[in-house]
């Protein structure tokens, strides 16, 4: 089936089998391998992308379901030249080690802070509870997200 959607601002057209989930479509068809796949059945959050402003698990959506949608992946958060304030905060706080969970953490935190720039530590922990990290122990990730809030308050949302 042919599917049209916007990926990080650029219109794309793909021809996929109905059974292909969105994460495979992004990675294998569109070669955007920033979106990671940990479990492929909704348990780990590594595949989180932002569909029409809402963070979702790309392994729990079919590519054919995003017809007409706008999708932001980790590739769409920053430019080639510079890291975003959120990414800079991850680096500053050592919020990643192997980096496998990081794309999902960044997209989830970006969606959260865009909607709720004043989210407190409890809210951030509740939201990130759906994203598994086997390296960091989470504390530096929460610290990084807390630190990045200031940038989202200044209407600079990308």
């Amino acid at each position, binding site marked *: *089936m042919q599917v049209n959607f916007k990926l990080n601002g650029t219109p794309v057209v793909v021809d996929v*089998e*109905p*059974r292909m*989930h969105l994460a*495979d479509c992004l990675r294998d068809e569109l070669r955007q391998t920033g979106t990671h796949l940990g*479990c*492929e*059945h*909704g348990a780990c*959050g590594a595949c*989180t992308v932002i569909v029409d402003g*809402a*963070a*979702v*698990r790309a*392994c*729990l*959506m*079919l590519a*054919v*379901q995003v*017809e007409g949608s706008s999708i932001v992946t980790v590739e769409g958060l920053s430019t080639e030249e510079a890291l975003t304030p959120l990414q800079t905060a991850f680096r500053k706080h050592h919020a990643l080690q192997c980096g496998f969970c990081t794309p999902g953490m960044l997209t*989830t935190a970006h969606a*959260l802070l865009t909607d709720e720039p004043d989210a407190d530590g409890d809210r951030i922990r*509740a*939201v990130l*509870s*759906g994203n598994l990290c086997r390296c960091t122990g989470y504390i530096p990730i929460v610290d990084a997200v807390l630190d990045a809030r200031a940038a989202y308050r200044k209407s600079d949302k990308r």
Partner: protein
Amino acid sequence: MKPAPFEYQAPATLREAVDLLASDPEAMVIAGGQSLMPLLALRLATPSLLIDLRRVPGLDAIAIDDSGIRLGARVRWRDIEDDRRLETAHPLLRETIAQVAHYQIRNRGTVGGSLAHADPAAELPGIAVTCDAELTLVGVAGTRMVRAGDFFTGPLTTVRQHDEIITELHLPFWPSGRRWAFREFAQRRGDFSLAGIALFYGEDQEGRVANAHVGVIGACDRPQRLMEVEALLNGRFIDEGLIREAAETSARTVDPPEDLHVPAAYRRALVATLIERGLRSAAQHRSA
């Protein structure tokens, strides 16, 4: 972790969706996909055709009037969380739904999908049964209403016929001044709970319990009310003795499964503890 092949359609009307479903015994509906996609990935479900409800109009509203609350089948957990009217119109629903799954899943998971999927530990079916809600189902033969207490028949099984689509859940009006509580215990935040309880009651002029409703999830093969506990509470004043009696009665009347997570005796004890905590907290707070 790749689903078996299937066809896909996203019909523009409910009629078309029902006709498509009726035309193929192997067809399935997909709403949020948050329960179905894992089943497809594990090939526990291998439908020939998926019928997506995403374009069907009229299923995504939350309507509140003096008969109660109507939740369209495609209302998401996120929509319930964001609707501030529910703070007074149905505080039990709002607080309970806040415990469902994780952030990303809450952006997709729906009322109709949760009811149809009928996980014994799912929160919404528990609220539907506890509150005596009614489901609306539309099939080729027409529309019918089913009481939540009659809808669930066991783990992942309901009285829904193959060609029927759930369109709405109606929760009866929530009067002000009710006392209520929801309590559950899960091993990790956002996971399905090992057991949960929902309860509410009114009070007569002297402050005795009236019209108690007590429901349980997770510690039974489907959401159910604990009629013995309700009968015990009605007409009595809540005190520590009654709370302990109610907790003991609840442990005795539930019939929990034995599974790989915990033994049945653990779930019984857990239900008793949750009932105790729920009753204690309800005695202290009253809804506006």
